């Protein structure tokens, strides 16, 4: 019995050490990517190409989800607010929830599952089929040529996608509250205008989405580059990207919110 307990403790210890080792490895890799970003900035067309795959192709899911989330917010908000006779505040409710929280967070979660997983799978498969080794043997650094452009494309796309998500959400809220239910359009927009602050709400939401962009793409490129060169390895890495990114987004969101809106 004690032997089994000791073995169990050893296992926990081993996993912890392994986790910390991987975290250190990931941090070093992240610094390496930043260090080798010169090529991406000099040859920006490499990043533009990835912007298409990472950003433009994610538009559909972002636009449609944003619209529906906004519509639900409008519906729920109206139902609750009308009990207190303040249904004209539904515009403020929709806008503040989207710009402060749902825009950056939900867009980042969708981005992780749509673009993050694709980045991991692509880099992982390039590794498994020896394309990265071949590149290295051709005296071209794969971190500079393959990883860094994808990283920057993700970092640039994320805030833009979050902004589009919020705009579509507000439009969805407007559709439900004003067009379908019949809340006064003037009060819907004017209350929103007077209650949403550029610095506190919009800028903070933007800063959040930048953080999420860096986190999700850094995780995605690391998992891809670090994945074992087998079918099983790549599939495991893709799953890890989505799971880890989602947890990091939610955890980071709490920390950032605490700093931004409570001034901790």
């Amino acid at each position, binding site marked *: 019995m004690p032997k089994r307990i000791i073995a169990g403790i050893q296992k926990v210890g081993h996993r912890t050490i392994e986790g910390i080792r991987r975290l250190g490895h990931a941090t070093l890799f992240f610094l390496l990517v930043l260090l080798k970003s010169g090529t991406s900035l000099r040859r920006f067309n490499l990043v533009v190409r990835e912007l298409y795959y990472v950003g433009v192709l994610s538009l559909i899911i972002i636009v449609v989800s944003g619209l529906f989330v906004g519509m639900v917010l409008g519906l729920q908000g109206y139902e609750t607010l009308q009990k207190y006779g303040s249904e004209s505040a539904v515009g403020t409710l929709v806008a503040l929830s989207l710009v402060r929280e749902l825009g950056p967070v939900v867009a980042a979660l969708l981005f992780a599952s749509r673009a993050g997983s694709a980045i991991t799978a692509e880099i992982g*498969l*390039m590794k498994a*089929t*020896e*394309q990265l*080794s*071949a*590149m*290295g*043997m*051709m*005296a*071209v*650094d794969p971190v500079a*040529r393959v990883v860094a452009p994808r990283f920057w494309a993700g970092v640039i796309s994320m805030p833009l996608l979050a902004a589009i998500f919020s705009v579509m959400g507000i439009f969805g809220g407007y559709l439900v509250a004003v067009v379908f239910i019949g809340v006064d359009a003037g009060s819907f927009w004017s209350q929103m205008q007077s209650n949403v602050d550029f610095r506190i709400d919009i800028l903070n939401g933007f800063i959040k989405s930048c953080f999420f962009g860096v986190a999700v793409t850094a995780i995605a490129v690391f998992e891809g580059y670090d994945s074992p060169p087998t079918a099983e390895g790549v599939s495991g890495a893709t799953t890890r990207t989505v799971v880890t990114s989602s947890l990091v987004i939610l955890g980071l969101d709490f920390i950032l919110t605490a700093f931004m809106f409570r001034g901790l």
Partner: protein
Amino acid sequence: MMTAETLVEISDLNFSYDTRAILNGVNMTMKRGQVIAIMGGSGSGKTTLLKLIGGEVTPSSGYVKVSGQVIHELNRDALFAMRRKMGMLFQFGALFTDLSVFDNVAFQMREHSDLPESMIRDLVLMKLHAVGLRGAHRLMPAQLSGGMSRRVALARSIALDPMLMMFDEPFTGLDPISLSVIGSLIRRLTDALEMTSIIVTHDVQESLSIVDYVYFIADGVIAAHGTPEEVKVSKAPFVHQFVHGETDGPVPFHYPAQTYLKDLQLEKTVA
């Protein structure tokens, strides 16, 4: 006079993964214009040897010298400069799947030179012509057969006219026609470009017909070496078994195990 011709010199090379020895005191000399085959069973350390020559891994001791420079002592920039003079054909081609055949061959020219696009176009078509695939330059790698992708990969690896070409199992999984096409291409390109070609392979018949010299590796050491003629008539047990593909000989058929009877639990354990 001899040293002037020598392109690759491997001296007392040792390499181990963790504690497992892969290569043990390997010595080789390769001259310009030669096609050299390195043969051995699966897992005998052949591919590792190519990685050591290309500087992908560092030896535990000993050295690999390419045109007079010790590979593992080069810094990153010098190693990359050296690699521009080397070509490597990976087992399954390793073409960039997101680029067309044309862009794959043009890749190195675009990365390493400021040549105008019109000149790159001419050079790419010339390289593709050399492997007989000029007409396929618009295709994507997914549209190519195994033999064709390896020929495109060959065109890509000779894009900058290397002095040293390395081929990792170039014959694996090819039909007999593609196999002899690749074989004769390796010979012809080596002669035309005056380079040195190293072929890692276990295809005995095809490689013996095109190479100048053969090294046999078994368990990390050079078991035998010689010209194809010497090898064909060799009486050394390992070479004989390998060249004639016999199942029994110095290379055992069975992976090391406890006795068969014990594994089947038929052997009475003595109390």
